[in-house]
């Protein structure tokens, strides 16, 4: 399964994992990115994400295509949240399956690194006493 999507609803990781059914894949790597409750000593209450949605999907699709070319992987799923994401919830989920773990790990790391560089998604941290845009 190949899937890139953005969604406002919480991500159902189990439902995504259930899509990965290829019996020859011995490795399933699932990366979950979550908001931290502390940033530079300040307590973060929650994050809000926004995106240039059409361009973000395009960029994500390009990253996925590159991962599929560079690594021997099969399923590749990238789901990113939009809107308010509470502490502890998943903001991004990347699932990669492969015959062997090394390719799956490497592809997963490649995808999150590239996502953070180029995909037009932004997050704003909310504190008790204000908010700020946070890059990287």
């Amino acid at each position, binding site marked *: 399964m190949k899937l890139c999507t953005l969604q406002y609803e919480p991500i159902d990781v189990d439902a995504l994992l259930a899509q990965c059914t290829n019996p020859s894949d011995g490795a399933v790597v699932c990366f979950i990115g979550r908001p931290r409750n502390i940033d530079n000593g300040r307590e973060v209450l929650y994050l809000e994400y926004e995106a*240039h949605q059409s361009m973000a999907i*395009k960029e994500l699709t390009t990253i996925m295509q590159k991962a599929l070319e560079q690594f021997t992987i099969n399923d590749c799923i990238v789901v990113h949240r939009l809107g308010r994401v509470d502490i502890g919830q998943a*903001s*991004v989920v990347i699932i990669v399956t492969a015959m062997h773990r090394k390719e799956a790990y490497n592809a997963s790391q490649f995808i*999150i690194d590239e996502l953070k560089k*180029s995909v*037009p998604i*932004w*997050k704003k941290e909310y504190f008790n006493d204000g908010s700020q845009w946070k890059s990287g």
Partner: protein
Amino acid sequence: MKIVVQAFAEAAEVLGFRKKQFDVENDITASELVRLLAHSNQEFKRIAKTLFVAINEEYCSPDAVIHENDVVDLIPPVGGG
């Protein structure tokens, strides 16, 4: 010529719009457009140097030329993940 400018995240906040049509001189470049917007907006000027620009959903260089009816996106440093 008419172009559409889309602003996102902090750029949208400081400019006060998310999508707006502009009438600009022919052959204006991406960096010239950013300078033009920064001319009358100090807050935008502060973040202008960090912006990336995309034309019709493709990242472009500062000297890329904008054409009639292009959609120009002002993209602050991204923060996905």
